[in-house]
C-alpha cells in the first residue's frame, strides 16, 4: 500500500498523474486513426514542427495552442508543397520540414529570455506542471476528445475509404484537416508532459498495440486509451520509486507493453501466428 499511497501525498505527484493520464488518453484515441491512415510520420513531423509556434506564443503571450495550430498546419502545407512541386518524395519532404522547423524552435528558445521554462517543452516536465498548465491541458484535451468521439465514424470512413466519403457527400479534405488540427492540439497537450521528442511515441504506440489485439475498430478505441492510462500511471510510479525521468519511463513502459503484445497477442502476435500455422500444417 505504501508504494501506492506515499507519492500521492505530494501535490506535484497528483498533478503529474492527472496530467499524464489525460494526455495519454487523448493521444491514444487519436493514435488509432493515425496508425490506420498511415500518418505516423506525419504525427512525428507535426509534433516537432509546433515547437517554434509554441515559443513565439510564449513570447507574445498568446495561448500555446494557437502557435501550435499555426505551425502544425504550416508544416503540413510545406510538406505538401515540396512533394507536389518538386521531385523530392514525401518522406524526404517530411524530414526536411520538421527538422528545419524544430531547429528554428531551438534557435528561438536560445535567444528567448527565461530559457528554463521552454527547455521543458523539449523534454517534458511532468513534475513541474502548474495549476494553470493543468487547466489549459484539460480544456484542449476535452475539446480534442469530444471532436474525436463525436466524429469517430467519419474519421474511420476517412481512414478506410476517402473516395466513398467523397461520393456520398462527406468532405474528406475537411475531415483530414480536422484530424490534423486535433493532432496539433494534442501535440500541445502531450509535449508539456513528455516533451516534443517523445510525443510521437504516445501518438503511435497505443494505437499500434490495440491494432494487434483486435479486429474491431470500436474496440481499438477502448483498448488504446485504457492501455495508455494504465502505462502512464505505472510509468509515473516507477519514476517516483526509481527516481528516474518520468516522461521517459511512461514511454518505456508503453514500448515494453507493445513488445509483449507483439509477441504474445493471440490474434496478431508472433506466437499466435506461429500456433495457427502449426494447426494448419498438422
Amino acid at each position: 500500500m505504501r508504494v501506492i499511497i506515499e507519492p500521492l501525498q505530494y501535490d506535484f505527484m497528483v498533478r503529474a498523474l492527472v496530467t499524464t493520464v489525460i494526455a495519454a488518453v487523448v493521444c491514444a484515441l487519436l493514435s488509432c486513426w493515425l496508425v490506420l491512415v498511415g500518418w505516423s510520420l506525419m504525427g512525428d513531423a507535426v509534433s516537432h514542427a509546433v515547437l517554434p509556434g509554441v515559443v513565439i506564443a510564449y513570447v507574445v503571450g498568446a495561448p500555446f495552442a494557437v502557435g501550435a495550430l499555426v505551425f502544425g498546419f504550416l508544416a503540413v502545407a510545406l510538406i505538401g508543397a515540396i512533394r507536389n512541386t518538386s521531385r523530392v518524395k514525401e518522406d524526404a519532404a517530411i524530414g526536411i520540414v520538421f527538422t528545419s522547423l524544430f531547429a528554428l524552435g531551438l534557435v528561438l528558445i536560445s535567444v528567448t529570455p527565461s530559457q528554463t521554462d521552454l527547455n521543458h517543452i523539449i523534454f517534458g516536465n511532468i513534475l513541474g506542471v502548474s495549476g494553470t498548465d493543468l487547466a489549459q491541458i484539460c480544456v484542449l484535451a476535452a475539446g480534442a476528445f469530444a471532436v474525436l468521439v463525436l466524429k469517430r465514424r467519419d474519421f474511420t470512413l476517412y481512414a478506410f475509404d476517402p473516395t466513398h466519403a467523397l461520393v456520398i457527400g462527406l468532405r474528406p479534405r475537411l475531415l483530414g484537416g480536422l484530424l490534423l488540427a486535433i493532432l496539433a492540439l494534442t501535440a500541445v497537450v502531450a509535449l508539456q508532459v513528455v516533451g516534443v521528442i517523445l510525443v510521437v511515441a504516445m501518438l503511435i504506440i497505443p494505437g499500434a498495440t490495440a491494432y494487434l489485439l483486435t479486429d474491431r475498430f470500436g474496440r481499438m478505441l477502448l483498448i488504446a486509451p485504457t492501455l495508455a492510462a494504465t502505462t502512464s500511471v505505472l510509468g509515473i510510479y516507477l519514476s517516483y520509486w526509481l527516481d528516474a525521468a518520468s516522461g521517459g519511463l511512461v514511454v518505456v513502459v508503453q514500448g515494453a507493453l507493445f513488445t509483449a503484445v507483439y509477441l504474445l497477442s493471440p490474434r496478431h502476435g508472433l506466437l499466435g501466428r506461429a500456433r495457427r500455422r502449426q494447426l494448419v500444417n498438422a
Partner: protein
Amino acid sequence: MIRVEHVVARYGEVLALDDVSLSIRPGLVTGLVGMNGSGKSTLFKTLMGLVKPERGRVLRGPGSIGYVPQSEHVDWAFPVSVRDVVMMGRYGSLGLTRRPRAADHRAVADALARVELTDHAERQIGQLSGGQRKRTFVARGIAQDARILLLDEPFAGVDKRSEATIVRLLRELAADGRTVLVSTHDLHALPRLADDVVLLLRRVLFHGPVDEALRPENLARAFGLDVFEGVA
C-alpha cells in the same frame, strides 16, 4: 443515367480522356473495356468528381454513386467487419455523429441478405474470399440505395463461381432501374455480364451491344492486334 459531354481530362501530364462523350442508360449493365492506360480509371474518377475535367461536363440523374474499388486500393487488414463497411453506405443520410437508426440497421441487413453475406456479417473483411470481398462493397452500394453503381475491375482475383454470382447480382441491380457501369479487361465474362459495351482508348471507339463490341475489328482497335485471339 450518366451523360458525359466532350470531356477532356488529364492524369498528371498525360492526356487520359480526349473529347469523350457518352450516354449510359439505366436498366442495363454497361461494360467499360480498354487496356491499361486507356483512361478507364480517369473516366471513373471524373464521374465521381475526383478528377475535374479540363473541358466538357458530366451530368447524372438523381441519387448517389456507389463505388466498388479495385482490390489493391483497399486496406484489407483494416479493423472493420463486413457489417461496418455496408453501414458506411448509410452515412450520407445520417446525422452529425452518423449514429445508425433502426431503419439503417434494417437496410444493412437487407443488403447483406441480397448479396448472400448475412452469415459473414461479423467477419473482418480480410477474412473473406475474393468474391465475398467484392460483394461486401456491392452491398454497401445497395444499402446506400445508389442509383449508379461503378465497379472497377470486379473480377480480378475472383473465382469462376463467385464471378457468376456477382454477374447475376449486377444484372438484378440493373433490372431495378440502376445504372451499372463495370470496367473490366476480362473479355470472356463480357457476353454474360454486359448488355452494352464501351470500348475506350482515350476516346470512345465503340458504344453499343456487346456482341457487336466483341467483333474482332472493334477489339483490334481497342487493344491492338493478337491480344484476344479466340474470344469473339
